[in-house]
């Protein structure tokens, strides 16, 4: 498996993701600059990393969505390619319309940076097939604007279609219905506020994030 990690000006988890994939998961990775307009043909999955793309100016992800690479990521996703957005990556996916809803300021106005309990709500995704339904993962969050919000009918649809992938055990930011991660209708695009790439080595305090990458690997093998 070779993951393409997109690098925006202001990304700060791009190297974390690259390191996690290459060192802790044992797969390959490449960094993709935001000005590139094509995804190299040897890339199996895309990671939109955390950080503050374009300084989070205007809105988180609002300027990133107009970058050339996002056009390429949309095509990649439309063709069934696997795309994961962590933290700022999730914000970019909602801004780009690849995922529904939006991430707004945490209801407590605090930048929350700590481990959270994350419940796996569905294993019917390429990102959680190696997990168990109801399993509690310990994975860190680090965000000031991670309050997931969407119209009630959108939330109902996400639940009805089994597209809520992760929920917080204890809601840290006011996210509606405790939602921490969702996928698209085709189930090949995942967005989540927590950072699985930062929970891939015992030195990081948890290796629970590995299950996301192991799921990805087995999904790609099955393809």
């Amino acid at each position, binding site marked *: 498996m070779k993951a393409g990690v997109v690098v925006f000006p202001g990304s700060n988890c791009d190297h974390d993701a690259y390191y996690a994939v290459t060192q802790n998961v044992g797969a390959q990775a490449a960094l993709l600059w935001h000005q590139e307009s094509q995804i190299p043909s040897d890339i199996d999955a895309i990671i939109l990393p955390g950080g503050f793309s374009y300084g989070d100016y*205007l809105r988180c992800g609002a300027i990133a969505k*107009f970058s050339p690479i996002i056009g390429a990521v949309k095509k990649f996703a439309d063709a069934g390619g696997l795309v994961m957005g962590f933290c700022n990556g999730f914000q970019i996916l*909602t*801004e780009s319309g690849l995922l529904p809803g*939006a991430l*707004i*300021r945490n209801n407590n106005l605090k930048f929350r940076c700590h481990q959270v309990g994350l419940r796996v709500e569905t294993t019917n995704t390429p990102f959680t097939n190696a997990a168990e339904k109801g399993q509690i993962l310990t994975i860190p969050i680090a965000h000031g604007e991670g*309050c997931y*919000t969407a119209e009630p009918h959108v939330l109902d649809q996400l639940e009805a279609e089994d597209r809520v992938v992760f929920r917080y055990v204890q809601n840290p930011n006011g996210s509606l219905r405790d939602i921490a991660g969702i996928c698209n209708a085709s189930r090949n695009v995942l967005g989540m506020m927590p950072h699985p790439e930062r929970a891939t080595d015992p030195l990081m305090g948890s290796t629970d994030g590995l299950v996301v990458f192991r799921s990805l690997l087995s999904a790609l093998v099955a393809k």
Partner: protein
Amino acid sequence: MKAFVYVTLKKTVLDAQGKTVTQALRGMGHAAIADVRQGKYFELTLAEGTDAEAARKEVDQIAAEVLSNPVIEDYRIEFGE
């Protein structure tokens, strides 16, 4: 000509910052203030000689696609000098 764009959170979206400002004002004794909603303001200066009708369309598109996120925000545009 200038375009003034006001972007506000939809009424159904929680405005955590506005709520905090409301509480601060009440703490300061401003009992008359029942609620505060915080938003963004953009002032766009149009290039000399820009056709007014075309500019209106263009600014509306910019407000809808760039300056606001239709999932959570509404916008309003005024034109002036």
